[in-house]
């Protein structure tokens, strides 16, 4: 009972909050925006004007009559709803119905993962798509090519909220491009933070200090440190200077992947100006495949040398989990994305509370930071071609509302995964922005109150600023944070703050010389058939060379085979797609 009352209060509070923010926005003089929707909301305006957004902003308009949106929804088997609630009837669907007259009808559900994908594939095959569902890239392209999807190119521009636009713009147009087929946009993309694709080196600072070493800047420094770790064995006989990929991870990412690899070597390649796994376009428009370059070859030789000297985990590629190895305190260095150091290796701090892990960028020999970036989007909300315009609008509105109001819901009992056709959106620079704002709060140049009630795309910021001071009691302006400055009392907060303040510090503070993205993020026709094959061939080659099972001639052989077994066709197709 009590819990329910609290919920109601919370909801009411969030409603008023959203009301204010919406009013604030229209006051800022957006006369052009409301001309289109005025006529539609005119009838409803009289009756329930007081509890809706005033209809001025099409991004948050309330439909005069209930609009039914039929969806297919993935449900997580680990998240469940309280008794009496369902995918069709929960705080999120209530909220959408009450405030926007959007009634969510769930045509089908399936467990997220393969069961869900299978359902999507069958929908496409039998041409029975629901009005909306979230899918991964190959399904989106398949359905778009078959002509089953609603072209939202113009509608999206008209309907997206300012925050959504902010998120889209933060990717520099990449998000829209990735959700388009043949120049037309067919999906609302889910956008991932950019730093998820940036790999940094994580290192045991306490070990460095023990041997009087400096933090690494270049590959040479890494090698020297690894040499010391290998000789002194700070964690005993089985010390591993540098962790490597385990049997389910790769040595580097390819152009289809969003994040970076965990314990892979992307950063090592980038520091040598090599970008394997992605397609590159040089100044005069020639397309090359990053793996087929002298720099990649050189880096592979370097890694093989490191492995040979015992710097890299001798069991790389066969271990069940490199993360477990790190958690056990045997590892001196590993590569990973910003979140690895906090979220990824929580047990490392539980086992060894003063393991002072620190993240750094790896620079080229002339001190430049080259960064290989992944695709910007992780999922796509597609709309059935045959829906009415209102339904299409409603689906875009749902995405708008999710981004604006996400933080207002109490997700402890009703997880956010039950948001109908959820498209996760984070501004590309969310982590870096948060980093700088948190520094301001810690320095005292901004106060916690400054962030409350402000509606931005940075939806977790207001919560972050609230907990930052308690989580980092030892902060001193100008001093590099270390593990001893953090409080692990609330472990979840600790993990987030450690990831943000240490793990994302490189990307937030180090200027990037060269951002390298693949010039294509989806598969061409030949790739659809042959990529999986080529990629597994490539992985095998890399793994064998690094671990010394083959010498470098296997690389030359691979390049030749790659070209012959479809690679040359693929390069041509990629060039055509530009």
């Amino acid at each position, binding site marked *: 009972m009590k819990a329910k009352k609290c919920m109601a209060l919370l909801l009411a509070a969030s409603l008023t909050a959203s009301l204010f923010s919406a009013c604030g926005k229209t006051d800022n003089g957006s006369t052009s925006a409301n001309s289109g929707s005025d006529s539609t909301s005119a009838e409803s305006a009289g009756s329930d004007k007081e509890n809706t957004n005033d209809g001025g902003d099409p991004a948050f308009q309330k439909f005069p009559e209930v609009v039914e949106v039929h969806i297919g929804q993935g449900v997580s088997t680990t998240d469940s709803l309280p008794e009496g609630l369902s995918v069709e009837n929960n705080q999120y669907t209530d909220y959408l119905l009450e405030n926007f007259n959007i009634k969510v009808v769930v045509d089908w559900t399936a467990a997220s993962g393969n069961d869900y994908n299978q359902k999507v594939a069958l929908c496409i095959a039998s*041409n029975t798509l629901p009005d909306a569902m979230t899918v991964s890239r190959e399904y989106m392209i398949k359905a778009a090519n078959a002509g089953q999807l609603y072209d939202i190119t113009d509608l999206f521009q008209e309907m997206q909220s300012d925050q959504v636009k902010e998120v889209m713009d933060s990717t520099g147009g990449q998000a829209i491009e990735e959700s388009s087929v043949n120049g037309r946009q067919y999906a609302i993309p889910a956008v991932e933070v950019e730093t998820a694709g940036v790999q940094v080196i994580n290192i045991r600072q306490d070990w460095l200090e023990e041997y009087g070493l400096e933090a690494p800047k270049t590959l040479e420094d890494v090698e020297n440190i690894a040499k010391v770790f290998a000789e002194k064995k700070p964690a005993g006989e089985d010390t591993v200077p540098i962790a490597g990929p385990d049997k389910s991870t790769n040595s580097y990412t390819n152009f289809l992947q969003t994040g970076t690899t965990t314990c892979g070597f992307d950063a090592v390649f980038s520091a040598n100006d090599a970008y394997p796994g992605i397609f590159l376009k040089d100044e005069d428009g020639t397309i090359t495949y990053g793996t087929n370059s002298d720099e990649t070859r050189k880096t592979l030789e370097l890694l093989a040398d490191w492995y040979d000297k015992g710097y890299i985990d001798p069991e790389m590629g066969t271990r069940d989990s490199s993360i477990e190895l790190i958690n056990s305190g045997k590892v001196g260095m590993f590569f990973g994305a910003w979140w690895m150091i906090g979220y990824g290796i929580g047990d490392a701090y539980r086992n060894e509370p003063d393991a002072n892990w620190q993240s750094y960028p790896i620079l080229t020999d002339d001190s430049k930071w080259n960064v290989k970036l992944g695709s910007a989007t992780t999922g796509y909300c597609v709309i059935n071609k045959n829906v009415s315009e209102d339904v299409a609008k409603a689906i875009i509105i749902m995405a708008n509302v999710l981004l604006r109001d996400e933080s207002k819901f109490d997700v402890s009992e009703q997880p956010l995964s039950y948001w109908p056709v959820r498209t996760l959106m984070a501004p590309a620079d969310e982590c870096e922005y948060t980093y700088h704002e948190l520094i301001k709060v810690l320095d005292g140049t901004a106060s916690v109150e400054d962030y409350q009630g402000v509606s931005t795309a940075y939806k977790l910021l207001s919560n972050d600023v609230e907990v930052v001071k308690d989580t980092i009691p030892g902060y001193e302006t100008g001093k590099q944070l270390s593990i001893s400055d953090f409080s692990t009392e609330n472990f979840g907060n600790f993990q987030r703050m450690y990831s943000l303040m240490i793990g994302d510090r490189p990307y937030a503070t180090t200027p990037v010389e060269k951002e390298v993205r693949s010039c294509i993020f989806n598969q061409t026709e030949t790739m659809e058939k042959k990529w999986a094959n080529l990629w597994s061939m490539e992985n095998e080659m890399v793994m064998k060379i690094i671990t010394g099972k083959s010498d470098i001639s296997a690389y030359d052989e691979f390049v030749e085979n790659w070209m012959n077994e479809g690679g040359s066709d693929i390069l041509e197709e990629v060039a055509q797609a530009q």
Partner: protein
Amino acid sequence: MKTAVMKTRPFAKKRTSRTFFHYNLMVGIGLLWLIFFNIVPMFGIIIAFEDYNPIQGLWGSEFVGLEHFEYLFSMSDSRRVIVNTLVIAVSKLILNIIVPLAFALLLNEVRQLRFKKFVQTIVYLPHFLSWVILASVLLEIFGYRGVFNALLSVFGVEGKIWFSEESCFRQLVIFSDVWKEFGFNAVIYLAALTGISPDLYEAAAIDGCGRLKAVWHITLPGIASTIVVMAILGLGNVLNAGFDQIFNLYSPLVYSTGDILDTWVYRMGLLNVQFSLATAAGLFKSAISFLLIVISYVVAYKAADYRIF
């Protein structure tokens, strides 16, 4: 024949037409089921010969001939999948004859009838459990914290997630299938064994024939035809390595050794949305199986005088 029937019965003609009508009625219900649920979906095979577009449908999609088949055979993936399928299926085929046979022979030596009956009843058990259920139990037992690892740790062997090991997956699949089916498969051999006259054994015993010799000279020849028939019939299943089993047990980690035609077709069609390619691969499998079944039935008929239809 027919005239003979008519001659013997005066009302034969009237009777035949009425019987014919009722026979049609009897066939009718089953035939409807057959047509609507077996034959209609079969027309989908044409997907394998076209570039299937769901909007244009089965009949409107562009016809591309054998393109998908050509590609299918040019893929190095398909080689791996076919090798896996053959290795797993053939091993199962052989072991599913030898192990139940050995079991039946040994069980046949058990003299306490009640114990024999008890053993027989229990070993059928796994046959009646689905792979969904057995897989969940097996993954548990052979999991990282499972019983098997606990057993190994006694001998100081390092634990693994056994069904995620490339090098063990096939063996485990074959072994678990043989284990699941040996009891049930032994039914036929046990029944055949009861057909051998006890007099033969007595005569052999009088001749001073040992147990092994008796098995070799009396038992095996006695059930040889059954063994031959089972082996030949198994031929038709050479491309059926067991979708249900592998689908419930495998993971991407073991694709290299555990991926079989059926699971590959499933992933191609339903997860990679390559509808036409998957259908083509399925058709390829059907065609080969068809050929093998025809061959095996002809052989069965010729070699063991066994006819199924």
